[in-house]
């Protein structure tokens, strides 16, 4: 009886801590925005260049009412998700092939390192000309930014498995394919989810850069357009919308992670 009670207490305390954390984070955000508003009001921050939360909020309401918000958000999110999915799946596939053939991995290693060092955003115009203007070009730019990093980090995870576990499986006469599908891949699910989290940010960079260059709709398009007509309040608003989109996507992956890891407890 005593033990059960104290466990409940511990649980309650943990929950309280979590709520406290959330309150602190929310407060920081509110204070920052309030500070922004005040500094802009007293012209310490140049309102023209940085805008202010009240102006941004007003603009946001306008867009919401005119139903001009979601078509742009939708297309950018669509492009980003496409980039993440194709880039991650392709990257994991390639990393798997490299794991399978050590020879191939050794041959391609220096090429990957060089390719990774290239600034992909600078090469974006070339990629778009090759892949075509429109969504295909934009998605290609997004993939280019996240593909190589995905391959390299996934490959590292695949090769950092425990050799003894492989030995154990070989003692059961396991084939290479079985070792991959039953050990290498399942043991790295957590790592792959982390890779996806990182890819979210990179995909957004690629999509925005791509939309800067070629687009009719989308968040990047509006960021560029706002700059062209000197509506920095518009630019700021879409930056905030962009941040929210990325945050939500991150949160979804976190949920998936909790669901998958549920019951699985990390190796000590």
């Amino acid at each position, binding site marked *: 009886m005593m033990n059960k009670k104290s466990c409940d207490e511990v649980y309650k305390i943990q929950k309280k801590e979590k709520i406290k954390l959330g309150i602190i984070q929310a407060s920081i955000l509110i204070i920052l925005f309030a500070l922004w508003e005040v500094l802009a009001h007293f012209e310490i921050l140049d*309102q023209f260049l940085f805008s202010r939360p009240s102006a941004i909020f007003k603009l946001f309401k306008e867009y919401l009412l005119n139903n001009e918000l979601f078509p742009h958000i939708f297309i950018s999110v669509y492009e980003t998700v496409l980039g993440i999915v194709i880039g991650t799946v392709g990257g994991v596939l390639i990393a798997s092939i490299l794991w399978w053939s050590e020879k191939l991995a050794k041959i391609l290693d220096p090429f990957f390192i060089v390719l990774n060092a290239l600034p992909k955003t600078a090469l974006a115009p*070339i990629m778009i000309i090759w892949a075509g203007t429109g969504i295909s070009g934009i998605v290609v730019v997004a993939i280019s930014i996240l593909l190589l990093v995905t391959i390299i980090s996934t490959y590292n995870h695949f090769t950092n498995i425990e050799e003894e576990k492989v030995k154990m499986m070989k003692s059961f006469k396991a084939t290479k394919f079985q070792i991959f599908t039953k050990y290498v891949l399942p043991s790295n699910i957590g790592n792959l989810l982390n890779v996806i989290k990182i890819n979210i940010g990179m995909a957004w960079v690629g999509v925005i850069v791509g939309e800067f*260059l*070629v*687009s*009719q709709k989308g968040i990047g398009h509006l960021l*560029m357009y706002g*700059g062209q007509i*000197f509506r920095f309040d518009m630019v700021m608003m879409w930056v905030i919308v962009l941040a929210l989109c990325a945050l939500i996507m991150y949160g979804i992956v976190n949920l998936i992670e909790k669901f998958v890891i549920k019951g699985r407890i990390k190796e000590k």
Partner: protein
Amino acid sequence: MKILKKLFIMLLIVKFLFILTGCKKDRYSIVLSEVTHSVFYAPQYVALAKGYFEEEGLKITLINSNGADKVMSALLSKKADIGLMGPEASIYVYNQGRKNYVINFIQLTQRDGSFLVGREKIENFTFDMLKGKSILGGRKGGVPVMTLQYVLRQKGLDAVLDDPTKEVNIRTDVQYGVLAGAFVSGEGDFVTLFEPGATNLEKEGKGYVLASIGAESGNIPYTAYSATKSYIEKNPDIIQKFTNAIYKGQKWVQEHSAREIAELIHPYFKETPIEDLTIVMQRYKDIDAWCPTPFFAKEGLERLMDIMEQAGELTKRAPFEKIVDNSFANKAMQN
């Protein structure tokens, strides 16, 4: 202990050097931000090449900001002293109600600098050949697209942005840097390009220059020099010296041939062979692209605002007297 002492002395020396180089910023060292590095601004490069700025006692640091919004930001955040860009930027800024707005004091170009390029050579090109076609115009909200639309409408064509069902479809999905590449890879029936891009395409046989948008648009202030109101109030002598130097450059351009201009400014545009540069200079001379004097005419600004209104980008017109100051131009011309 000895090592510590040495380190301390070194730190002092480094700090001293920093202060030295920091203090070195004297008034006559000007940061000039240009919207892009272009042969279109030949008179400025003539002034640089001929040392007209030094004659006036000015030292110019030129930075390429790649976009009018970035030039404007540089001016407003005091990273640049004088900016070279389209005056539409100063209209937008004034309309946003900013107290320390931006004032234009020299007009550099008086024509749209872009050329209509097509895939086939067309003898006796007329604008109604554009019916039912698409043109890659550049980015929405930019003056080149607005001017293109204005010119086509003047010619009686129903030119609309991003609508393939209308008579002429002006596509705004492709940005300036990628225009040529996109066109070559098959996008659009026509494209408007600045120089030397248009001539480059012709050289490679990938396109043909069919018309000059500038020739059709009439006098519009396409590029001008500007600075913030406070900067001008605090440094009228610098603005005057600057204007004098540019005026000298403008005069030189008027008095010399395309070839001579090309040879003079070639060092600033090494990627373009002198022959091509000469062709481009000639094109600009033919359409009278460069202002002979720094004087910024009112009717030009009004026409620019007509164009912006017609494109739906201007809700309020800005007063000429506020955003243009011709006093420096006038004084330069008197001498």
